[in-house]
């Protein structure tokens, strides 16, 4: 591990040690938060018992659906917008201010229209993720060197081939940035919706435990989400690294 890596671990471990000490000394009371070692124990119990498995599965499936939609729609929309200059110029201010829109405000409306199922939650995750995907893909497409497009014309590639074989691969480093953001947004969208109103999922379970002062469930589930997002982020970063290394951009 690099020196920075060790520093990171040291900071995390030190924070845990401070929390542990404060909890054991009674400065943080048990109703507010359990000691970290107890959270670890409860985490282990919950994972082994398997009683959260269906909640975990539901959240992951919905997040994946939201992410898939955001990726697919985002990339296709970006490729089309890149070709439609006027439409893009029209939409640019919307993209720039999009994240000022409280997307969760649409959640009650979606529930009214689609019912209290998975779809409203997937839609919220999608809405949060898709614009990050569009903006970053467009950013990448803007930076494709003109000479590559001229090469495509000399080889007389049809437009779909130009997108799939030249512009999107050339824009890949920017697209990965979009994917990283979209993953985070999809999680936030789905878990946040579950938190507000849902019939299951990790967000729902956390919210349920929260209202019942059930710290033995709430904190372990928060840890679970943290671990999941760290794992996904690490995997994406590895992919990004491999991509940049191959292109000599690292």
């Amino acid at each position: 591990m690099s020196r920075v890596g060790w520093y990171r671990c040291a900071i995390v471990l030190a924070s845990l040690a401070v929390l542990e000490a404060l909890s054991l000394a009674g400065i943080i009371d048990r109703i507010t938060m359990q000691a970290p070692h107890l959270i670890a124990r409860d985490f282990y119990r919950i994972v082994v018992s398997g009683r959260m498995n269906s909640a975990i599965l539901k959240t992951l499936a919905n997040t994946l659906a939201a992410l898939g939609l955001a990726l697919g729609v985002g990339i296709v929309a970006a490729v089309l917008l890149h070709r439609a200059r006027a439409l893009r110029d029209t939409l640019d201010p919307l993209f720039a201010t999009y994240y000022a829109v409280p997307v969760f405000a649409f959640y009650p409306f979606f529930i009214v229209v689609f019912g209290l199922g998975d779809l409203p939650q997937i839609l919220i995750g999608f809405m949060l993720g898709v614009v990050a995907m569009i903006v970053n893909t467009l950013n990448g497409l803007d930076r494709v060197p003109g000479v590559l497009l001229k090469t495509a014309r000399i080889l007389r590639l049809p437009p779909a081939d130009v997108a799939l074989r030249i512009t999107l691969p050339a824009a890949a480093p920017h697209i990965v940035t979009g994917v990283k953001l979209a993953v985070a947004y999809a999680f936030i969208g789905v878990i946040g919706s579950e938190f507000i109103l849902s019939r299951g999922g990790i967000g729902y379970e956390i919210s349920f435990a929260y209202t019942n002062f059930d710290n033995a469930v709430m904190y372990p589930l928060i840890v679970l989400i943290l671990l999941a997002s760290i794992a996904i982020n690490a995997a994406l970063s590895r992919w990004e690294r491999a991509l940049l290394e191959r292109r000599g951009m690292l």
Partner: protein
Amino acid sequence: MAAPQVRLSGVGKTFMAGRPPAPLHALGPIDLEIERGEFFAVVGPSGCGKSTLLEVIAGLTPVSGGRVEFEGRPIAAEAPDGIGVVFQEDASFAWLSVAENVGFGLRRLHLGRSELAERVRRVLQLVGLSDFATAYPAQLSGGMRQRVCIARTLVMEPRLILLDEPFGALDQQTRLLMGDELLRLWRQTDATVFLITHALDEATMLADRIGVMSARPGRLIDVVQTGWPRGRDSRIMEHPEFGAIAARLWKTLREESLKTIGRDAATGSAP
């Protein structure tokens, strides 16, 4: 005598440029005929429309006037079959290996797997990149990346190869060696070569004929026949005629270059 492979008659190009947009006469009128198998070089002051001329022949830019023919057929908006282009900028695909780069255009031809691999292998050997087939462009030097682009063009077996200052970004020694390689490839492939360069020695050493372009709007103001043997290489620089040809090019070009510089100095605009 057979018809010329490339024929330009009265070709001109006018752009809309500036703010507010005003028509800018960039090129022409140009009349030019290039024979099959010829090595034709174009020199000219910077900003004279050399690259525009190349893009017109490649079908990348429509003309504003006149007519461009390749093998007797007019070139419209699309790049015609049988023409390959090597650009000055690095056009290698960073996400593909050298072999994948070279084989890129062949997919369109729907060749069998083994035939495709064989053609890629042959061309890689031709440009001396056999040992780098699995490398990625980022691992190669600038000269080697340019050879990847040349190989990617050659593998399509073009009958006319257009090169837009292909060695412009390389150091002098590499340029000379790449020039030798280009001459060898030209002889081995029997293709016609149309080379744009700003280096007078490069044009003098490589070409059968050299067209000299005027300052904007670019017109051909002189065409010099070198009379070199087909089997030449960069050692042709020792030839007693070499200096005279380069001097003639410079004599014509010097006034034109001064015009460009004078104009930019007068208007204060960058080229």
